[in-house]
């Protein structure tokens, strides 16, 4: 893998009550890269996101951002340090306007002038949203909502965006469009950690991929290699990788 490591998960073990969800989970997101975390239902993908954001403290192991230990730190601090999120199912504030949703993305920031700058920049990236600023986010189509969610994440001026199943529930046409957008966002210099069930789609734009199975990394490698790997298929049929 190339590039300086931006985010490192180091041997994470986490539990819900007595049930262990992660077993020595380690992964690295390099600067400016798109990394894809693949896994079936209930394999622990969303819990990985929660762990990164400090919403869930692992029993052992560390989360490092640019070498700094942020394990279990308050979410506000982690967001301020440069990690934004596109949550599972987007989770927009449906009763609030698009504009307000974007501003919520910058909630932890106090630099008014820079926020205004980012606001313009984000709207340039997503011109569709400019006409919809006063519309309630909940009334938009799935694809548009995904744009708002991404724009909202960018408003935090992040170094890394964590996306939890960004293509979930979108029509095939929109899936392509969203993947394009992710690539565009990435080109602005932001790293992306993308959690997906949809392997072949996600790997097409990713640099590197991990396959998570029942809380363990079962397979990893450059996206190109994984795409060609027949075992990826097996993983998605729920069979164990030898």
């Amino acid at each position: 893998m190339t590039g300086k490591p931006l985010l490192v998960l180091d041997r994470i073990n986490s539990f819900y009550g007595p049930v262990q969800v992660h077993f020595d989970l380690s992964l690295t997101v390099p600067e400016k890269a798109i990394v894809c975390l693949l896994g079936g239902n209930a394999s622990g993908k969303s819990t990985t996101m929660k762990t990164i954001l400090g919403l869930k403290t692992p029993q052992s192991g560390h989360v490092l951002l640019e070498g700094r230990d942020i394990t279990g730190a308050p979410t506000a601090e982690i967001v301020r340090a440069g990690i934004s999120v596109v949550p599972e199912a987007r989770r927009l504030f449906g009763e609030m306007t698009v504009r307000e949703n974007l501003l919520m993305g910058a909630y932890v920031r106090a630099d008014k002038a820079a926020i205004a700058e980012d606001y313009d920049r984000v709207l340039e990236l997503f011109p569709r949203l400019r006409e919809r600023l006063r519309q309630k986010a909940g009334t938009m189509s799935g694809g548009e909502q995904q744009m708002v969610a991404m724009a909202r994440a960018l408003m935090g001026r992040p170094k890394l965006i964590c996306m939890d199943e960004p293509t979930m529930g979108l029509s095939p046409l929109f899936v392509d469009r969203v993947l394009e957008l992710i690539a565009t966002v990435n080109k602005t210099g932001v790293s992306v950690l993308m959690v997906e069930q949809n392997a072949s789609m996600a790997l097409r734009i990713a640099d590197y991929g991990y396959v998570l199975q029942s809380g363990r990394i079962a397979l990893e490698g450059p996206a190109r290699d994984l795409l060609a790997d027949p075992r990826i298929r097996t993983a998605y049929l729920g069979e164990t990788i030898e």
Partner: protein
Amino acid sequence: MESLLSLPWFDFTISGVVIGSIYALMAVGLALIFGVANLINFAHGSVFTVGSYIGWTCAVALGLPLWATVLVVAAAGGIVGALIELLAIRPLNHQSRIAPLLATIGVGLILDQIVHIIFGANPRALPVSLPNLRFSIGSGTIGAIDITIFVTGVISALALYLFLFHSKLGMAVRATAQDGDAARQMGVGINAINMTVFGIAGALGAIAGLLVGIYYNSIDPNASFEIMLKGMVAIVIGGMSNVPGAIGGGLILGLIESYGIALFGASYRDLFAFAVLLLMLLLRPNGLFARAHAREAEPMTGTFVTRAKPVRIPAWALVAGAVLIALVPALGQPYLTQVMTNALLYALAAMSLTLVAGTLGLISIGHAALLAVGAYASALLTMAGLPVALGLVLAAAITAVLGAALTYPAFRLRGHYVAIGTLAIGEIVALVILNWTSLTHGSMGLYGIPPLELFGIPLFSTNASYWFVLALVIVFALLQMRLLSSHLGRTWRAIREDTIAAETYGVASNYYKGLAFGFAGFVAGISGAVSAHQFSYINYDTFNLLTSVLILTIVILGGLGNVTGAIVAAIIVAGLPEVFRTLAEYRMLFYGMALLLLIRFRPQGLMGSD
């Protein structure tokens, strides 16, 4: 018709709007808190009372002008609200969601007691000099007080609007109310938001207290509960977390009350509120203004604690305990025996509630109503000439039937709504007792209830009645334990864990809930009936909210669902304060603290829950 039309409708409308705007002030705070913290703040009425007394201190004791009084009251109310969040709610962050609701009941009792200690238990006047203006409009008039209250309400609403829609913190409050998890992921500090919302609610509630005091020129240290209920009815009308809806709900309730009083008389005032509440819960639980696609309130099971394995006590120890308790009269202390009799009557009531709240998972805050039904039934029957033994049994049977029938509307409710619904049902029972004068003698109460006796054998000596009550406790405890380990008990627990799943397996949950309330009603009815014969006098207030809270505290202390626990806890909670006189004097403080500390440090109770 003629006479109806000639009523001063304009004046009734004005007073409806004025009282309604006070309800709206209360309701807005409740709605904000419900939205952000998913919690019904039962301490909200006490903040109102605190506000009225701080208002009295400023306006009367210190002689401050009205505008300064309003500002001080708002600031103080805000601080009280924020402190409630910090001290009582925040530590419960990781407990299940009904825990903070119970904590706010404890906080309310404590605040009320503090007001009692400082200012005494009697109402006092709150004279505020306002310009002596009256505007005549048609046949009606509007006074300076009406205008002051309405304008203060409007200014508060405007300030709230500006905060919510034109400040960053306000935006975060709205975001959190819509989706707390998503807000957290944006880096919103939920504690700060909760505290903000409690602070705002406190400020508005305290202002409402001041305004009511000015309106009636009277403040009352016992007003908390009633006004809290009014606010709650308003948010149920408005749709729980809907802030504009809460304002609408408050005004609607104010008008309904005002017109209702015009038509039926003032003694029915509270009945309108609760009738509206029940109707709303049953017909439009999402409120009048809910949109079709409104997010359904998240279901919340009645289970509110991490369950701990119940402490198994060997049979010989239970027998030894029963023998020891039976020997209490041998100590030769009649006062102690009386206290213990009373504690055992509470044990019966607690056994009844622990079945409903613990085993079945329906946290009821209106359990005193069952005691009242039993007490009145037995008192009336025996005063009409029936033997006491028959009166007791019939009263218990009547309570069983009424208990199941009255709570039937609450069966389809869940979580917080059960708490609200049972509370409303309990209040309605009290109001019916108060207003059904021909049967119950209304506020006079019933005098000269025959003393305890069974088939001609007198049981009214201190020791005899003690043993009689103890025998009842033992019999019903054994019966209840037997039921719990039967198929019936397993079905009840299955309904508690997951009503919907239980129903998909073919369990007719309403039938089983009815059985539970029937049994619980029988036991509670006996407890109330025996109390009536013990006291020889009862009135509508003998079994009130404090009784309900006390029983609930006992049940939690004993461990939800735990029969032995309920008995032990009843002896501790209902017995202890009477033995120590100072505790009895500050009873509400004691109960409030007990409830608060329990939920914080030992939510699974002394003996574990099952």
